[in-house]
């Protein structure tokens, strides 16, 4: 490991972060986009390097300011964070590469430098959450990413983006503040902010009321951020009215990062130390996950707006992720982590398709895309494949995580069968809502002659790249599985 390599964890965060101030100083037409994309790609490259190091068996640690761990802030990259970093930086890079035209359409030119700066900040905030090993530092970066996300979403062309983003802001802030309270209470009882140190020291004071309270606050706060049912109400509108590319980016990773923190805290800090903590999983998280899956899917079935439909589907998919976690087994957590990755792929691709459609059609409603497959065959073909992945058809990435999820459900005994049934029912529901779109696009006659053409090449190209990744990881899921298994074992305290 070279000297430069050892700095990668921090570079992961500060490369996009420090590029942001540069971006707002740029005035040329394309320059902000170019710089932002370059920074994002650079971050992606770093993430890949980190993932390779992690897979080679290292856990990378980094002390900021060279101060030792519980006193200074420490960064740590393990299998879980490496996987998430791949998702986050990958989503950002793809969306930026694909999105130049789409964003030109949504954001006026003179506002673009600010927009791209906010984008980079969102990226660095998310990356910052993932690399840090410090509870308070998570809060700081959570706020960077949240504020930047609010900015990004508010760039949406529809005025309804504004109330949506306001709601998101209020709920997001409540979530973050709850988290802050929880961290404060734990700090009060343990005197430390470092996660590993915390997990170690919490043992002495476990089961005292402040710690229980802290667990509650942290869980609720992060659940708000992660849009876990029934705290998801900010999500559909925020995703619907955001600029298309922003939806691609955020849908693929924003809530997932909150789930990441939640899993970290629950499994790392609370689970080994709190009596009855696993009950809470079984009694709260599990039913809520199931409800999320069913409600999200049902609403999606009847939703006429395409992006909203996708957003509700996200609510359901978040349910899958938490369901896996709530099974409290290594395989369940593996499924959960894996689904984070795979759902990002699938949903990212779907929202990219939405962006493609959005380039050509004003109102993305099911009725408006009747017969569009003739005009935009490549776009809709991509949609079909990505939709299959979302449903979980074998041969796509979505199948792999559902497979793991179902296996994990079976392992959990008699209840498992019921879970499997629900998972399958909801898959069927996914079939229905994906199918409604496919049917409209392929098998209905357009009401009038559509004078539209295929989406712009870069957008289409990136869409297909992601779609093909869905297929690729459906057949060769080795890397994500390895990382996810590593992450799950880590979370359950088993050293691989």
């Amino acid at each position, binding site marked *: 490991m070279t000297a430069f390599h050892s700095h990668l964890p*921090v570079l992961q965060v*500060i490369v996009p972060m*420090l590029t942001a101030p*540069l971006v707002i100083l740029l005035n040329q037409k394309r320059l902000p986009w170019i710089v932002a994309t370059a920074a994002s790609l650079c971050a992606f490259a770093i993430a890949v390097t980190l993932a390779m190091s992690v897979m080679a068996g290292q856990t990378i640690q980094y002390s*900021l300011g060279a101060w030792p761990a519980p006193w200074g*802030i420490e960064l740590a990259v393990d299998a879980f964070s490496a996987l998430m970093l791949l998702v986050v930086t990958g989503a950002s890079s793809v969306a930026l590469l694909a999105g130049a035209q789409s964003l030109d359409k949504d954001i006026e030119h003179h506002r673009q430098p600010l927009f791209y700066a906010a984008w980079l900040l969102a990226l660095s905030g998310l990356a910052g959450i993932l690399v840090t090993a410090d509870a308070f530092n998570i809060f700081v970066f959570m706020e*960077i990413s949240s504020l930047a996300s609010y900015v990004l979403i508010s760039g949406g062309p529809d005025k309804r983006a504004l109330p949506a983003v306001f709601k998101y802001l209020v709920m997001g802030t409540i979530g973050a503040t709850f988290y802050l309270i929880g961290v404060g209470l734990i700090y009060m009882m343990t005197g*430390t902010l470092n996660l590993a140190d915390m997990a170690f020291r919490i043992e002495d004071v476990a089961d005292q009321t402040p710690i229980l309270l802290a667990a509650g606050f942290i869980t609720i706060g992060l659940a708000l951020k992660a849009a876990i049912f029934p705290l998801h109400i900010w999500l559909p509108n925020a995703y619907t009215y955001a600029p298309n590319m922003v939806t691609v980016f955020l849908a693929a990773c924003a809530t997932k990062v909150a789930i990441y923190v939640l899993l970290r805290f629950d499994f790392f800090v609370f689970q080994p130390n709190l009596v009855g903590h696993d009950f809470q999983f079984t009694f709260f998280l599990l039913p809520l996950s199931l409800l999320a899956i069913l409600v999200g899917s049902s609403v999606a079935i009847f939703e006429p707006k395409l992006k909203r439909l996708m957003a509700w589907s996200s609510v359901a998919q978040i349910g899958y992720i938490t369901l896996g976690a709530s099974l409290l087994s290594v395989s369940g957590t593996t499924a959960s982590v894996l689904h984070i990755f795979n759902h990002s792929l699938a949903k990212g691709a779907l929202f990219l398709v939405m962006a493609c459609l959005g380039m050509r059609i004003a109102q993305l409603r099911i009725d408006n895309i009747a017969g569009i497959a003739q005009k935009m065959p490549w776009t809709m073909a991509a949609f079909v494949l990505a939709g299959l992945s979302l449903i979980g058809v074998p041969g796509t990435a979505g199948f792999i995580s559902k497979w793991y999820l179902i296996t994990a459900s079976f392992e959990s005994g008699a209840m498992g069968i019921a879970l499997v049934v629900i998972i399958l029912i909801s898959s069927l529901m996914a079939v229905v809502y994906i199918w409604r779109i496919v049917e409209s696009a392929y098998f209905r006659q357009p009401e009038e002659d559509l004078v539209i053409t295929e989406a712009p090449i870069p957008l289409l190209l990136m869409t297909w790249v992601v779609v093909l990744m869905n297929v690729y990881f459906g057949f060769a899921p080795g890397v994500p599985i390895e990382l996810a298994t590593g992450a799950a074992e880590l979370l359950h305290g088993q050293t691989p």
Partner: protein
Amino acid sequence: MTVIFGFFLLTLLLITAVAIVQSQNLFVSVMLSGMFSLLLAVNFFLLDAADVALTEAAVGAGISTVLLLSALAITAKHEKAPSSSRVGALIIVIIATLVLIYATLGNPQFADPNAPVHQHVAPWYLDKTAEAIDIPNVVTAVLGSFRGYDTLGEVFVVFTAGIGVLFLLGTQPGPFAQSNPFKLTDPKGLRHYLIPRVVGRMLIPFILLFGLYVQFHGEYGPGGGFQAGALIAAAIILFALLEGENSALKVIPRSVLIGLIAGGALLYGVVGLFGIFLGSNFLDYSVLSSNPVKGQQMGLLIIEAGVGITVTGVLLSIFHAFAARGKF
């Protein structure tokens, strides 16, 4: 004894909070929240948190009041009659409060030296500051060096908010600015008011200087980049109030503001990067000079400057952005 003062002040605080929520008049709410901030700041001061008290005062009583008022000027003064479904929420909230209060019974005793908070990392900071950085203000040392990464994040939070507001409200005047008759008739601030103008003008240089003083004495007393930035911005906002929006923009044009926003953030980051280039970790200032202690002090000075610059730039930008939307 101070605890008893605290008791009274906290009670006042609670009353204020209830009044804020109860008041239908938004303006009154804003005024009361200014008071709330002051009271809160005094409480912080009583709890030995001088830096926090200064910040809360500068932010809560100063900046946020100004921002809220300018938003009110554009939007509305009164809120509508409340909705009917309040009882449920009230009950939930009361239950939650009781639960929280019950939970506090398990807290460590107030100000107990044996509480975990005072045991683990805190003494280390106190010792290490004297040894490795050698400045009196431990808060600044922790803020700037031991947890400098957090502060970098904080600067970028401010930065994000700044570009966010600029992005939302833009540099162009919005639709309301045109339809606002006042904007066109009198863009000149408080010009006609002789007394405020004269006194204000006399004070502005001193406020500025005081801001810079707070900036550069962050290592010795309460204060630092953020508080200084707020004070300097307040001075210029005062000027804008007295002489009008445009005069203030002439003093510090928008392009300069953008430069300040970006420059301060970059300054911080670049200092951090120097740590890497000079062979240590990110944000390690001790390598900046041959003497590690001197290096730390230098690093702190520069990053505080970065914080101050960004905060000034952002707060002013936000103020101008709001003001441009409707005459404040």
